[in-house]
């Protein structure tokens, strides 16, 4: 059983085999994303009640917290792929890391943006330099650094190695973001949901937030799979399987025109 599993991993770690698999998976993840987003948004706006303290403005939590969680989760996954890519020379892992970065950067930006637009009506300010906000901003810089370094190096192999190294160095920032609200007193609230304590949210609010989180997660998987397919084509363009794949497609196109 274990052997069989490892063979499957080995099989799909080859870009050639992963490319069609990803293609088959993408529609499913899009389907999940859309269903969950619809349910999550319905719960967020029509079912979840008004908060006793913040009134309606708390509804930003349904995108703010999922975006912030995804920003950290994506970095963690990206760094894991970076380690796999560096240590075991798995090309697909390098490609996954670079496919994850733009989406991670986007969610980091969204977490900051929605946070600012939530902070203004509740705290009375868009921005404050407390530990949580500053460390999340640093995360955005790390993502941008990763993307820039990768695009600045011409040789894809070297680019993957250098940016993977950078991603690994930047992991140190993750615990700082996560624990900042415990370690220092910040303007940012403490965690409403944590693995060690009972959630400090009404069940329906929590449900809406978790569904939105899963929706963002599915979105991430779908978009990253799409992006990694492009990256696979680009980096494997000299191989025969890509040539055949695209050669067939162009033939099909010509036939269609006739």
């Amino acid at each position, binding site marked *: 059983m274990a052997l069989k599993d490892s063979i499957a991993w080995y099989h799909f770690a080859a870009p050639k085999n992963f490319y069609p698999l990803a293609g088959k998976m993408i529609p499913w993840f899009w389907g999940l994303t859309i269903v969950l987003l619809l349910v999550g948004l319905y719960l967020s706006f029509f079912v979840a009640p008004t908060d006793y303290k913040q009134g309606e403005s*708390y509804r930003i939590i349904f995108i703010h917290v999922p975006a912030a969680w995804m920003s950290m989760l994506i970095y963690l996954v990206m760094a894991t792929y970076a380690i796999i890519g560096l240590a075991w020379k798995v090309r697909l892992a390098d490609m996954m890391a670079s496919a994850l970065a733009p989406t991670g950067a986007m969610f980091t930006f969204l977490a900051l943006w929605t946070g600012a637009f939530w902070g203004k009506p509740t*705290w009375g300010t868009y921005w404050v330099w407390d530990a949580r906000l500053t460390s999340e901003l640093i995360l955005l810089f790390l993502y941008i650094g990763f993307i820039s370094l990768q695009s600045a190096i011409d040789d894809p192999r070297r680019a993957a190695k250098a940016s993977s190294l950078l991603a690994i160095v930047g992991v140190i920032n993750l615990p700082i973001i996560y624990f900042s609200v415990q370690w220092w007193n910040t303007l940012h609230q403490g965690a*409403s949901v944590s693995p060690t304590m009972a959630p400090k949210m009404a069940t329906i609010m929590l449900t809406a937030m978790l569904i939105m989180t899963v929706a963002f997660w599915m979105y991430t998987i779908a978009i990253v799979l799409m992006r990694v397919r492009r990256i696979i084509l680009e980096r494997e363009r000299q191989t025969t399987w890509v040539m055949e794949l695209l050669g067939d497609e162009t033939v099909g196109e010509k036939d269609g025109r006739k």
Partner: protein
Amino acid sequence: MKTRHKRMAFILVGLAGLGVAAWLVLNALNSNLALYISPTDVLAGDAPKNQTFRLGGLVVEESLEREDDGLTVHFKVTDSANTIPVTFTGILPDLFEEGQGVVAQGKMQGGVFIASEVLAKHDENYMPTQVADMLEEGEKLNQQEQAGGSATVVPQTP
């Protein structure tokens, strides 16, 4: 030195360094590295003198007074041990309320904190209005029972 010995030496140095780093970090976490300062620390002299700093705590219930100009407000900030009066001229954030968390930036002047900016700090609890109302009712009942002399009721921590 053999490679193995060298590797051992590196690992030992690494572990020792990690220990030192951990000790330093723990040491730092115990002391002041905060966005704001509590009233107790301010009264103990742990706040900057003649300089702006951030004061944080809860707004004391029924301490809010508005002047006639409608802009200047007086209220008291507490950390449940000590209390400092605050004066602020300007628009308060929507979430500002008695009994709520607040972070004010300003200076001490003769025992009064003159704030130039007031930010509201909210906690991590979210619940529907009705539930909150019910909880409040329950708390009132509790307090009445307490006043009635019931010894079994555990006082709620704020």
